[in-house]
């Protein structure tokens, strides 16, 4: 018989919160919109294959160059951070907004376990949307001109899947912290993404203060870009990039969990 005066063990509690949050998160309009956005390249790749098969004269970029643009610019720099922003900021903020946080906090669950369960649900949802899309897009484009040479491109796929997962963890951790800190975190989050993160295109040491510069350094694709990004693009050593992202994610997550545990939430009546 469980001692009802003590909270549930961490992992059991986190698992229960994960199950509850996953159901709400996957079947939300937010996820549907993100699935459409993240899955767009797979549709584009299908159209590309169709045009190649129909022998329609086009001035399209080569298939693997298109894949490089999709990974380096569309997913890593834009859509995945956006997905992290919309999902991770809502982990706690939505409960506060919907005034349902009280129901969670009055359960025999520790606050870190609630946070861990919710973050795990966010990761499962976002990875479940993003990674299949990457796999489908890769195979559609890599085999657009036949199966020969596919093996030489496969290491890129594995690396891209890893970097996409890391992008969702790093941005997710940062936006989860923002969601715990602020009542309305979306606008500051958007400013961070489309303001602060643009520092990655500047020369000097400023790009090291952004997440996108470290993430871009981990992928092998370097599509030609115009403007500042084209002229001053920097690539950091892969080992250092990995270390910085892991440390930053851990710090953001720890800070978010600690703040969530310590903070007094006064809900509007």
């Amino acid at each position, binding site marked *: 018989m469980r001692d009802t005066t003590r909270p549930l063990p961490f992992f059991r509690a986190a698992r229960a919160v994960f199950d509850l949050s996953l159901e709400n998160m996957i079947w939300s309009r937010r996820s549907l919109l993100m699935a459409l956005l993240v899955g767009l390249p797979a549709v584009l790749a299908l159209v590309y294959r169709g045009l190649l098969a129909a022998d329609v004269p086009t001035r399209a970029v*080569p298939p693997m160059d298109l894949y490089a643009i999709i990974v380096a610019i569309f997913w890593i720099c834009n859509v995945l951070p956006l997905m992290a922003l919309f999902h991770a900021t809502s982990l706690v903020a939505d409960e506060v907004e919907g005034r349902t946080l009280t129901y969670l906090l009055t359960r025999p669950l520790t606050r870190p376990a609630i946070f861990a369960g919710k973050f795990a649900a966010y990761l499962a949802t976002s990875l479940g949307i993003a990674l299949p899309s990457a796999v489908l897009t890769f195979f559609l484009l890599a085999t657009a001109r036949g199966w020969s040479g596919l093996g030489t491109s496969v290491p890129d796929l594995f690396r891209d*899947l890893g970097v996409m997962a890391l992008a969702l963890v790093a941005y997710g951790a940062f936006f989860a912290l923002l969601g715990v800190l602020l009542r309305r975190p979306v606008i500051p989050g958007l400013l961070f993404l489309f303001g602060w993160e643009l520092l990655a295109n500047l020369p000097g040491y400023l790009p090291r203060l952004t997440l996108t510069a470290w993430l871009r350094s981990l992928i092998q694709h370097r599509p030609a870009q115009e403007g500042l990004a084209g002229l001053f693009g920097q*690539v950091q050593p892969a080992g250092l990039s990995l270390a910085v992202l892991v440390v930053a994610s851990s710090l953001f997550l720890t800070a978010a969990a600690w703040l969530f545990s310590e903070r007094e939430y006064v809900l509007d009546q």
Partner: protein
Amino acid sequence: MTRSRLVLSVSVLIVALGVVAGFGALWLDSARAAVGPLPGEGLVFPADTHFVMGFDVKRVVASPMWTRMASKPEMRPEGLKQFETMTGLDPARDIDQIVVAGRGGAGKTAPQPLVIATGRFDLEKLSGTMGMAEQAEKRQLEGTTLFTMTKENEKGETESSTLALLDPGVLVFGPTAGVEAVVASRSRGETPLTQNTELIELVEGVKPGSTFWVVGDSTILAGMPDRIPAPGMGGSGSSVGLNLPPLQSLTLTGDFDPELSMALTGVAVDEAAATKLADVVRGLVALMSLQAQQKPELAQLASAFSVSTETNTVLINARIPYDLLEALQPKKKPAPGEASPEAEASAAVTED
């Protein structure tokens, strides 16, 4: 199982299938390409090779650049015409891939490189065509047919080149001594190039699926100029110029379809040298932009380049449309007595 878990299971299944298919392709493909894009046949090149380059001929032939070259006979390289005449081969039809390896040097002092072509060759027909050539001497070496052609160079020295038919899918051409060494290595089952670990490492790093690629080690790059004239100094031979940091290795990959795209990776001695080299390239790109008032195409060309650095590595990417390349070509001056298009147009207006 809840609906959300079903969705997750489907996602996991797709990713798992992709990973399995990827490993399958990796395992099956490794048999075809020995090192990066280099076919197994290329490993018989000598160990003292300083550069290797490769062309995916099928993709070159399918590219808009080939179509443009075909429409302008003067753009077809003389060497290619000689090769076609001598062997009776049609590169567009018979060759899949060409790999060239050499030992550097500049201009006419450069030793002749070795060329390996893979494709579909009719040995009997090729033997017949080569055998009929007056200057070709046919002989056998370790079971391989060799055709040696001897000629005198400008200095009066005798030079000999040899073409060997290794098998119906592989042909090797180059200086006689080099080809004989390749034939001997092949018959003994040796792969001398694998001893050149520096070059092999560079080949392994070539971007997969490139239509053309070139890798060169520090030895070949030692012959490159170490300074360029500073802006405004012209080519007057003045000692004032920009020092170029030496490069340890160079990798160039690219495609011809739908436009000319290239990725150049140069490894410098250290981070400072890489930054300096990148700055020089950025300066040249900026100069191009400044010249845009005289020639607007230069602004477009400048925006086609992107430069970045990664510790001691400089990465230069470029995507240049063919229309831009044509616009940058110097306008052909009309021959004496031949009216320029503008003159013809004004004459037509006057007649009206």
